[in-house]
């Protein structure tokens, strides 16, 4: 393991990021409880009762998904210069840093999304209308997309205010949420395959774009 870490420095970054998250517990103690609170309040505001009708289920899911992802993406801000400084002292290349960072973010976000969906299903009594394997693949691809965008936006918007960051992120997350929501509402088998293929392409594109931008800028 020691040799592996020294050979592949992204594992070093991965271990560091997961240790920080375990210590701060921002996702577990801040992001998920806030989303859960919105999950409870949203139907009361929209429908005036604690029940989500089938007509607004799509909107409900998109809003919550975006809220969760926005809170997750803006939970901590990375300062570009600090990253550079740390990587310089540790002898880590930007490519290794990006790889370690994105894997750690996906490891944190993926179970959070599953937990969120589980709570949402329990509260709305509307099960997810797709097979369990499809659900896991889609959620995994979705979390990779979110993390790529999050790292990219954190990288290009290195300033104090979070407002612009939230606006940029929300604009990109909405179309991604629109791809995820049909899973809840249920689409045909053929459409699911097309969606998956499309989603896979989008994921590759976003990861590639974010990776190249990160390395070029440093």
């Amino acid at each position, binding site marked *: 393991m020691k040799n592996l870490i020294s050979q592949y420095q992204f594992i*070093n970054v991965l271990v560091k990021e997961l*240790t*920080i998250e375990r210590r701060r517990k921002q996702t577990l103690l801040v992001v998920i409880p806030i989303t859960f609170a919105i999950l409870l309040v949203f139907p009361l505001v929209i429908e005036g009762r604690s029940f989500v009708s089938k007509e607004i289920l799509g909107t409900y899911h998109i809003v919550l998904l975006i809220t969760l992802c926005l809170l997750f993406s803006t939970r901590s801000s990375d300062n570009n210069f600090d990253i550079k400084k740390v990587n310089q002292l540790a002898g880590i290349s930007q490519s290794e840093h990006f790889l370690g960072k994105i894997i750690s973010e996906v490891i944190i976000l993926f179970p959070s999304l599953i937990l969120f969906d589980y709570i949402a299903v329990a509260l709305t009594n509307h099960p997810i209308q797709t097979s369990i394997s499809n659900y896991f693949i889609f959620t995994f691809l979705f979390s990779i997309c979110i993390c790529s965008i999050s790292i990219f936006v954190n990288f290009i918007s290195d300033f104090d205010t979070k407002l612009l960051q939230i606006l940029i992120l929300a604009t990109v997350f909405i179309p991604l949420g629109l791809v995820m929501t049909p899973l809840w509402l249920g689409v045909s088998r053929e459409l699911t395959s097309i969606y998956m293929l499309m989603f896979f392409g989008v994921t590759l594109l976003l990861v590639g774009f974010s990776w190249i931008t990160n390395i070029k800028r440093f």
Partner: protein
Amino acid sequence: MNDIRINISDLTLSYGKDAFIKNFSLKVNGPSVVKIYGSNGAGKTSLLRYIAGIYEGNEKEGSIELEAHQTIKLLDNTPSLIDDLYVRENIKFFTKGSLITKQQQEELLVKVGMQEFQDDLVSTLSSGMKRRIEIAILLWASPSIVCLDEPDNFLDDDGMQVIDYLIKQIVQNQGIVVYSSLDWGKERIGYDMKVDLD
């Protein structure tokens, strides 16, 4: 290791339009200690960051030549350590992921007088203590070129001895130490070459 050198020629550094370093040249051949002196805003930190490869200014002209195998480390004027990790975790992270044994880690911390704090969070430490841990990391890395940005900041007399030890180690290993200082007259750290940026 004998071909270790820094060769900077006609360097101009600026943030925006106003250049604070104009046509600066520096040639260092072989193991030596270089002191860069300058008043506030003279460009000491930027120059060291430029040598270390993390300068973020808008414009730069001129060139820097370093041998390909040379490793450069920078001790910046603000700590680079990760606040949410313990001292021992920081040491592991910065020494290329756990290749360091527990005994080596302890020996390293003894050298910088921080052995009692290895299970403390970095965020709870003082600036001087953080600086000592960074020095421990540099001692382990033993780079060819070390840039120290105002290394005497935050350090007491014991801490200054640690800096002296680091500089001796680097020069002994045929390396180059470039450090910046605000003091022209007071010499807390020895040097072979002095450069005035004012």
